[in-house]
């Protein structure tokens, strides 16, 4: 009896071996390779040379910080705008729209089935000189305006548009997690609508909001095509720098160092937020 249990206990890790191997090869190995390359000499393709911090020194003495700031800044603006736009929609989906919610959710999901690039070129057609918007204004009303394409504003618009579902859906989940009776109770105990929102709705939907923030921020920091396509390379985000290093410049070690730095910065931010908003504590589980 005891030996049978022992054998079963030993079988557990053994059975996990295929998954562990798969994760090592598919998930950890590329990451480790990137980290490894970041310590290799400039413009080499080998992974087993004398490691050094040269690439990091190059990054810190170059103007890469501008790209970092652009990436983080654009992501921050995007996430804040997304929060402001998505909360009312999430509230509506969870509480107000009733049976229309399913249809609306579907409408918000459908764009995800179309390639991001295609959708962004759609925006180009919409905003371009003599395009859908400006062309219509010109021919119908004779109004001629400067195109907004290739500005920072249009990059933010593109990013808000692309990452909206990633903020909206966790947020909707968060809002729908607030029990109606709890809101009624707060109102019944004398709270105004605003106080109910502040004291009950917001804190209790915080897990969904935080997850939405993190998800869309992490994705937005890695955004590249919005700046390339809509921004017309007016702004070079860090991801673009990384791409250049890996392709045109053929400098994998430098690209790797940039990528590692980006991971470190974003990882630190995410961990800080997760420490500040302990999801379990918010949910009252501990």
């Amino acid at each position, binding site marked *: 009896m005891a030996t049978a249990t022992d054998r079963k206990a030993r079988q557990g890790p053994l059975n996990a071996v295929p998954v562990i191997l798969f994760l090592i090869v598919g998930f950890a190995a590329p990451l480790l390779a990137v980290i490894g390359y970041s310590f290799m000499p400039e413009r080499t393709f080998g992974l087993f040379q004398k490691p050094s911090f040269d690439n990091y020194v190059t990054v810190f003495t170059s103007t890469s910080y501008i790209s970092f700031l652009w990436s983080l800044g654009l992501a921050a603006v995007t996430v804040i705008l997304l929060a402001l736009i998505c909360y009312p929609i999430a509230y509506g989906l969870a509480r107000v729209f009733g049976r229309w919610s399913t249809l609306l959710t579907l409408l918000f999901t459908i764009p995800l089935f179309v390639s991001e690039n295609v959708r962004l070129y759609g925006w180009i057609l919409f905003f371009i000189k003599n395009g859908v918007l400006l062309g219509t204004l010109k021919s119908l009303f004779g109004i001629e305006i400067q195109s907004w394409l290739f500005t920072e504003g249009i990059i933010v618009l593109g990013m808000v548009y692309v990452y909206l579902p990633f903020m909206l859906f966790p947020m909707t989940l968060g809002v729908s997690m607030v029990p109606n009776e*709890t809101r009624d109770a707060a109102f*019944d105990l*004398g*709270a105004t609508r605003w106080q109910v929102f502040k004291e009950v709705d917001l804190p*209790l939907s915080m897990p969904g909001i935080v997850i939405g923030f993190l998800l869309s921020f992490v994705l937005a920091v890695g955004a590249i095509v919005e700046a390339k396509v809509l921004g017309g390379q007016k702004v070079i985000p860090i991801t673009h720098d990384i791409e250049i290093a890996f392709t045109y410049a053929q400098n994998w070690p430098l690209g790797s160092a940039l990528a590692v730095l980006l991971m470190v910065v974003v990882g630190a931010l995410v961990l800080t937020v997760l420490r500040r908003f302990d999801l379990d504590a918010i*949910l*009252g589980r501990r």
Partner: protein
Amino acid sequence: MTTRLPVIELRQITKTFGNFTAVHSIDLSIGEGEFFTIVGPSGSGKTTVLRMLAGLESPTSGDIVLRGQRINDVPANRRPTCMVFQSLALFPHRTVGQNIEFPLKIRDVAPEERKKRALQLMAQLRLPEDYYGKNVTKCSGGERQRVALARALAYNPDILFFDEPLSAIDYKLRKTLEKELKDIHRETGKTFIYITHSLEEAMVMSDRIGVMRLGRLVQVGTPNEIYTAPNSKFVSEFIGDVNIIPVRLANGNRLQSDELGAEFSAPGMPAGFSVGHLVVRPESLRIIERREDAENVLTGTLYNEYALGSRIQYQVRVGEQVFIVERLRQQALNGRLDTQVLVGWNARDSILVGD
């Protein structure tokens, strides 16, 4: 019972949701300091009535009057009323103390004053003082119950509403909390309006009970009146085990049961009675030895017995119908299962009701 001034009144209150009428033209007046319980099966509209009283729903037609003032348009947060919800609706992200202090915080009461009041209420409701900083989600069912009540009392309402707060609690604790609630009612002197689907629970606590069925208030009375003089088959059945015999009026003011092929003498006959039900409670129905021992007698088979602690319940089958008889434990009938017995009752111990 002394007559009380009405504190809150429902006048011709109707509530419809789409084409479903949840509450049907209810008239009800509840007295100052009264413990009033609305009883009904699920879907009878009792929770809707409570939510309208609390201001969380507005009536489709009719008036809600608080001490002579029409309050239909006063929202829940400005009514001097407070509700203890079925789910209790505690704030899971707050401590016991913060939950209780919530209504005071909303009113900008100073923190030290709030804490003082919260600790007072916790003492009154027998919550240990060190629970002040405890997360409510870590409290037991009974403790949460007390926190919810303390929070409602902190609001200092004139009327407290209770929406089946004890329904999810096990029997023993429920019995304790029922008594505690009635004690709190006496201590505070506030009006309590309570909702339950259990008439038994209502009986223990209430000054008066209103029975609801399909959105209508079918009977209002003291627990004793509801128990001894139910005005319908529905109300009489609601209190638990009861024997009901369908009857019609026969010659000489007697009642005829076609199913049982028997005639009974009747308690007081309502004017214009023709068909209805004769209700005999299990403790009024007796197993007798001689036909002369009761006014109405039926012959049946003693089919089964159930021990209820202080009493024993017997099942007697008469034709197709099952009768329930209760006796004290000391009067147990030993070794008589499957034998013929006589069951009987006196007319004055039965109640004649319509449908």
